């Protein structure tokens, strides 16, 4: 019954069971452990199903959106290290993400809260920061861009995500002041974050992305609105 390599395989079995720790496992060892895990998984079959509470799946969607957003933020931060106002922008964006998905922070797993706290830092006082997470009308998990407005400075920073327009089409950014005035074009969706000067925006304003022919809207108004998001105070 016993054979060469048993010790190693039995260690793997114990790591699968959890009687031994997995710390410092090599790739080969983790493959052996996974094989045992799949064997033991049959034990789960005898446990009767229990319906999870309603709304739990919504929490899964929120966490997926948040984790994706945090990963994007961190990538952006690495890319833009030293960028003027970068930290402030990240602060606002990170805060907006929490607001945008209306997820009480207490519901987040501990390590995600720590991650967020690290990103959030301390906000500057007396400085109104606004953010809008602009998401797809059909699927709130797809964000097209994040807009951060620094009211005192009169700037708007557009942070695009990874969405790209279909072949032969273009995405254009619009600002609609609260109260539903005519959309004002802010130009084509940039490929990397862009800060625009002399922007006057307030809470309740809407930022949208429309799909247009190459070069942008032919008549100065949006053709097909695809993404939208409302400005909220970042903190």
């Amino acid at each position, binding site marked *: 019954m016993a054979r060469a390599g048993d010790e190693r395989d039995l260690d793997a079995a114990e790591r699968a069971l959890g*009687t031994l720790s997995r710390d410092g496992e090599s790739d080969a060892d983790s493959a052996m452990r996974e094989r045992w895990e799949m064997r033991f*998984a049959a034990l789960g079959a005898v446990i009767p199903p229990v319906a999870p*509470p309603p709304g739990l799946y919504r929490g899964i969607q929120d966490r997926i959106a948040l984790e994706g957003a945090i990963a994007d933020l961190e990538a952006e931060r690495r890319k833009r290290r030293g960028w003027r106002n970068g930290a402030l922008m990240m602060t606002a964006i990170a805060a907006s993400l929490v607001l945008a998905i209306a997820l009480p922070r207490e519901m987040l797993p501990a390590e995600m809260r720590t991650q967020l706290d690290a990103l959030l830092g301390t906000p500057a006082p007396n400085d109104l920061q606004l953010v809008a997470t602009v998401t797809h009308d059909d699927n709130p998990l797809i964000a097209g861009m994040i807009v951060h407005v620094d009211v005192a400075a009169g700037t708007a920073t557009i942070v695009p995500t990874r969405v790209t327009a279909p072949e032969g089409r273009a995405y254009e950014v619009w600002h609609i002041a609260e109260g539903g005035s005519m959309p004002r074009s802010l130009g084509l969706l940039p490929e990397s974050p862009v800060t625009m000067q002399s922007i006057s925006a307030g809470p309740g304003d809407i930022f949208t992305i429309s799909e247009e022919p190459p070069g942008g809207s032919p008549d100065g108004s949006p053709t097909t609105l695809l993404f939208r998001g409302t400005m909220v105070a970042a903190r």
Partner: protein
Amino acid sequence: MARFWEATIADGRQDADRPAPGSDRDAAALAALLSAVADGDERSLAALYDAAGAKLFGIALRITRERSLAEDALQEAFVHVWQNADRYERGRGSPMAWLTVIVRNRSIDLLRRRGRGVQGRSVGDDALEAMADPVAATDGGVEVLALARCLERMEERGQELVLLAYFEGWTREELAQRFEAPVNTIKTWLRRGLLGLRACLEEEADGSRRR
């Protein structure tokens, strides 16, 4: 994709000799959903949740014995599935087994992170009994049946150690405390049990290949 899963179930119901849950057909449906999730299809994740959520929540609840922890475990597990669905390989086991591994690992991580003592956890209970009864285990397909048969053939002590470690997340040290035995003795018992279990499972696998 949700419709796809429902259709699969409805289809099965009309079938007089419908295979048990955990059958090849259910496995194929779950595997198809997983591969769509790997391609980033969010609706397939929802369908997977509809199909397997209750089963997996039952497992999380059995291990954590606390609704809030079980809810956390299930959420974390599905986020992990969303990010890692491409790592599921058909050749290495059923999709349900793969999902079960994820949920169990999350449940035990949460349980340990929260910190809990060995005291106050009941021992000889439902799962032990259900598992020791191969008839109750027939619902899960051939792998479950094989594991049930092999556990039944184990010495009682080894069987108990394996099940306690699996469902309660006890370490060697905690088992030693519970059984009032030195840690090395627990190790010896465990390994003797696991060696026998492995031999038996390999025999079962050879047998089913021949059938």
